[in-house]
């Protein structure tokens, strides 16, 4: 269930999932406060360093970034157009202001940096390990159980969905923008829903037969190692310098 294929052995993959979750959230929170170019570029560099350390496959990452940036650039352009200020660039009726372009750049840099960091730290993790890590970090156990069930059954439901779609294709179904398509999709989801809910009843019964009493026992032993400690200190220093830069720039 990870988008970048089986995680390669890398500096990041050897970290405990918990430290990766904490680091990713800390980074994203700090970056959402940043507005100054200095702090944003240091933060961006940190994200790139993490991507290199995680040995993500560049083509996959790039194609994803291109898709996301199409949306970010549209949003940035609308922001650049709607802020009043000194006009620096005029195309027909559209005038880009200095303040607007600056604001758009901040958004673009910030959004890309956080995407890179999340891809490096969390995107390389198996989804079930993420569930266990969140459990250990003190999330309510019923919530982590929902995560684990969802992760387990996404694949199953996805296969079921493909089976039904293939059956529809065999009967020459082609989605169009008409009532028939909407009805067919409605019935498709209805059938998936009925089967999904039936499945959940069977799962519950099977779990009760095996003595489930509302707890999952996690067999994978996770220990924070010296590797995590080194990463933690380095990461804290880097993030600290981003904060210092941001505060300094805000004062100036």
């Amino acid at each position, binding site marked *: 269930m*990870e*988008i970048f294929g089986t995680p390669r052995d890398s500096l990041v993959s050897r970290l405990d999932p918990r430290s990766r979750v904490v680091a990713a*959230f800390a980074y*994203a*929170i700090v*970056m*959402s406060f940043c507005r100054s170019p200095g702090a944003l570029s240091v933060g961006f560099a940190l994200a790139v360093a993490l991507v290199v350390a995680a040995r993500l496959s560049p083509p996959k990452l790039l194609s994803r970034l291109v898709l*996301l940036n199409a*949306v*970010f650039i549209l*949003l940035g352009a*609308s*922001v650049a157009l*709607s*802020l009043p200020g000194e006009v620096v660039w005029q195309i027909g009726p559209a005038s880009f202001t200095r303040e*607007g372009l600056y*604001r758009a750049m901040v*958004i673009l840099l910030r*959004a890309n940096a*956080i*995407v890179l960091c*999340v891809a490096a730290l*969390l*995107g390389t993790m198996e*989804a079930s390990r993420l569930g266990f890590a969140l459990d250990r970090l003190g999330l309510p156990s*019923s*919530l982590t*159980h*929902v995560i*684990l*069930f*969802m*992760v*387990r*059954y*996404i694949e*199953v*439901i*996805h296969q079921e*969905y493909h089976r039904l779609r293939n059956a529809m294709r065999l009967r020459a179904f082609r*989605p*169009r*923008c008409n009532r028939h398509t*909407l*009805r067919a*999709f*409605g*019935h498709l*989801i*209805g059938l*998936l*829903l*009925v089967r*999904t*809910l039936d499945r*959940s009843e069977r*799962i*519950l019964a099977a*779990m009760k037969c095996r003595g489930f009493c*509302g707890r999952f026992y996690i067999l994978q032993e996770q220990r924070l190692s010296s590797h995590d400690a080194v990463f933690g200190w380095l990461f804290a220093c880097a993030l600290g310098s981003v904060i210092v830069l941001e505060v300094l720039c805000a004062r100036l």
Partner: protein
Amino acid sequence: MHIADGILSAPVAGTAALLAAGGVAVGLRRLDADDVPRVGVLAALFFVASLIHVPMGVSSAHLLLSGLVGLLLGWAAFPALAVALLLQAILFHFGGIVSLGANVLNMALPAVVCYYLFGRRLSRATSPGAAFALGTAGGVLGVLGAGLMMSLSLLFSGRAFLGAAVAVLTAHVPVMVVEGIVTGFVASYVARVRPELLRGRMRGV
């Protein structure tokens, strides 16, 4: 459909995260241990259904199904949508981890409203026609609410987002129509095939 990280202002993202956490807590408290598998597989279904694209003219729209989740789960829509959106943010980078709270609140709050307005009536619906009407209403309200809340959270983050907020709301209108009709057909299908599923076997909610 989702707001990415780095776009909302920090106070807006923070407030939304707190409210969403409150909603998740309420949802979990009302959840019986026996309901957990049901919520988990419904979250998985929500995740998979977002892959279904309906062609519309030159482009296409994917289904949201937050209204359907709300109709069936009530307050448990909060935890279900929270975990599905978390995974979407991490695996596909749709949405984000700081804006997760805002995205959850934007989708789950209208979903809970759907439950109180239509979901409880849907569980007593006797005919497929009535189920269709209630399902359509729930699907429309789910998308309309999500679009409104998303535009509002952009506007709260700054006047500069006015254009983006209007664009978001406009983009939700065709989705709303498609989603409403599809949800209506889902409800009438289930009412015909397995009416007891609509009776709500959730113990807690």
